[in-house]
């Protein structure tokens, strides 16, 4: 696989607006989870809500896209000089040679949920100002980002539930390999809504407490929200040694169940193997694994089996969902940005809220931050429907 450069990256989540705040939270082991006070939701759970989303204004000409998900996207695009980096890339390659591939699970469905409450009592019609295409439809966020950044390349939204924004890295990598484009804005945007809060609750998959990945007493997820963006580019012939690169991608399907992972982690193991093969690396070359680690009983068991079957029990692993919550369709991109920060700053973030690692789980789970030379990392993302993706990032040289 042709490695690609992460020319610029940014993230907004419950642990910070932009990479500086995100890194600081990771270093201070600060969690963004708090008791759920979102909208009128009466589920007893913790969430990773991003402050300031509703106050974020969209550009005047794109007001039609107004919804929590696109405001969160806008907040993300404003961080870390991301929009300027994309403008420079489009200037270099041409706007037709820069694609947009984003992941989401629920897009702006919150607008529809609210619109249903405001239905005309007699006719049952939705409010006049409700705009399906610009808010509810999954493509809305990619259309919004295309127009905000003045890009004219291919675009699509990936919707494989919680692996959506990991798989966009593979999609963009293929498009660049085929020579269709030279650069791509990839990432994920997912925002709090009633569908996921009540939905995961109905499956008894939400924890009342802040989620505790890999803990013996873990009992479910904490839902979060995030916008994370990466500018992926065809690398120049001479690479800066500090450059962060996408080295490998792997994708598989469980073919097992709609909402439970394969109990032995069959699909997860396949995606990890593929990513290692694509990167031409051996398991021992990986310094840190950012786990999917949702803190459900079944995910952590299956992922533990998959990871230990490939890596044994020595490789440092953690889930950052104890800090950020599970950002669902944005989790893959958010955790890709955390992996890039791990490599840049030599930090392997300890998993938060986990006090007693489940003795039945055998991977080497970090509860405290570890410092060291982080050359290559693996990030796992697994979604409903058995859609798995593993990504490998590393230094340019």
């Amino acid at each position, binding site marked *: 696989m042709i490695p690609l450069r992460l020319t610029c990256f940014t993230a907004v989540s419950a642990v910070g607006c932009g990479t500086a705040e995100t890194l600081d939270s990771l270093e201070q082991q600060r969690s963004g989870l708090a008791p759920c006070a979102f909208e009128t939701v009466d589920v007893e759970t913790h969430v990773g809500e991003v402050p300031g989303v509703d106050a974020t204004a969209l550009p005047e000409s794109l007001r039609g896209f107004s919804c929590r998900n696109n405001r969160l996207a806008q907040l993300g695009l404003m961080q870390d000089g991301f929009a300027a980096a994309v403008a420079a890339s489009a200037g270099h390659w041409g706007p037709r040679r820069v694609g947009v591939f984003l992941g989401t699970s629920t897009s702006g469905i919150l607008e529809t*949920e609210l619109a249903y409450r405001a239905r005309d009592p007699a006719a049952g019609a939705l409010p006049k100002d409700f*705009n*399906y*295409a610009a808010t509810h439809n999954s493509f809305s966020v990619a259309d919004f980002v295309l127009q905000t950044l003045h890009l004219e390349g291919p675009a*699509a939204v990936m919707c*494989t539930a919680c692996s959506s924004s990991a798989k966009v890295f593979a999609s963009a990598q293929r498009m660049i390999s*085929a020579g*269709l484009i030279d650069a791509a804005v990839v990432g994920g945007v997912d925002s709090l809504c009633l569908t996921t809060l009540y939905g995961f609750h109905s499956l008894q998959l939400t924890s009342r407490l802040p989620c505790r990945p890999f803990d013996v007493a873990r009992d479910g997820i904490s839902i979060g929200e995030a916008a994370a963006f990466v500018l992926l580019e065809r690398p120049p012939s001479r690479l800066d040694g500090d450059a962060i690169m996408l080295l490998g991608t792997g994708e598989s399907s469980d073919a097992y169940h709609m909402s439970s992972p394969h109990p032995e982690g*069959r699909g997860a193991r396949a995606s990890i193997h593929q990513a290692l093969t694509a990167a031409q690396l051996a398991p021992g070359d990986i310094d840190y694994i950012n786990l999917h680690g949702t803190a459900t009983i079944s995910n952590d068991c299956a992922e533990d089996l998959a990871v230990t079957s490939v890596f044994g029990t020595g490789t440092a692993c953690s889930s950052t969902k104890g800090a950020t919550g599970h950002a669902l369709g944005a989790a893959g991109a958010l955790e890709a940005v955390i992996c890039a920060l791990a490599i840049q700053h030599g930090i392997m973030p300890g998993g938060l809220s986990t006090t007693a690692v489940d003795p039945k789980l055998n991977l080497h789970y970090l509860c405290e931050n570890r410092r060291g030379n982080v050359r290559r990392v693996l990030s796992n993302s697994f979604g409903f429907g058995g859609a798995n993706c593993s990504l490998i990032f590393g230094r340019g040289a």
Partner: protein
Amino acid sequence: MIPLTAYIDGIGLLGPGFADWPSAAAILCAAAPYVAAATVLPAPLSLPPPERRRTGRVVKLALAVGFEATTRAAIERSSLTTVFSSSGGDGFNCHEICQVLASSDRQLSPTRFHNSVHNVAAGYWSIAAGATAAANVLCAHDASFGAGLLEALTQVVVARTPLLLLAYDTQYPEPLNAKRPIPDAFGVALVLAPNASAPTLAKLTAMLTYNDADHMSEPPLEAMRASIPAARSLPLLKKLAQRESGRVIVDYLSHVRLALEVELCS
């Protein structure tokens, strides 16, 4: 740039007035008249009974066209990489969820929730076909067919493995239908391979173009093309049905379309 070339080895089709690929092909090449009729979705017998009971229209549609295309291509389903593309998920399921969430009792059914994911058809396909390879599931609103085809061709040329593309849309009930009117269900599946083989029907090469998409000359078919995102495939299907080599432009994004060079193989 690598030419975005793949070989079409099998086609599956279901839509209003279209019962399967051979009968639809007869209509598209004007050998038979088009008779408007509601889309008939078969029960997904490929799924185990518990899963079968939980499936909605979108899953029935995707599975039906996927099985038709792979049967025609005589290819082992379990080995195929897949690309699913749809403008929306299961519209009826979405309506039910929004209705419950707007009521005083917000208890959702777990099945409703897991059927709400956009990749629901991909999940059930992988179970029905035993398919453990990658499944990518896209949405690009009205551009969903073009986005799916581009993703599929890119995967075939980069990974050099056969792939199943499924593009499908179903309607929303009211009140969402008034905001997103999709008149009926339409699905198309193409088995795409990196090399020609016995079942190959045509060679397909795609390029980005900034010219306008081709329309259908027959008013009811043009209405279908314009109103159902997956039916944006009709100009390509017509070319294949007419058994003609030539160039066709299918719709994609508002700023770019796909020019397809079709070369007959058998």
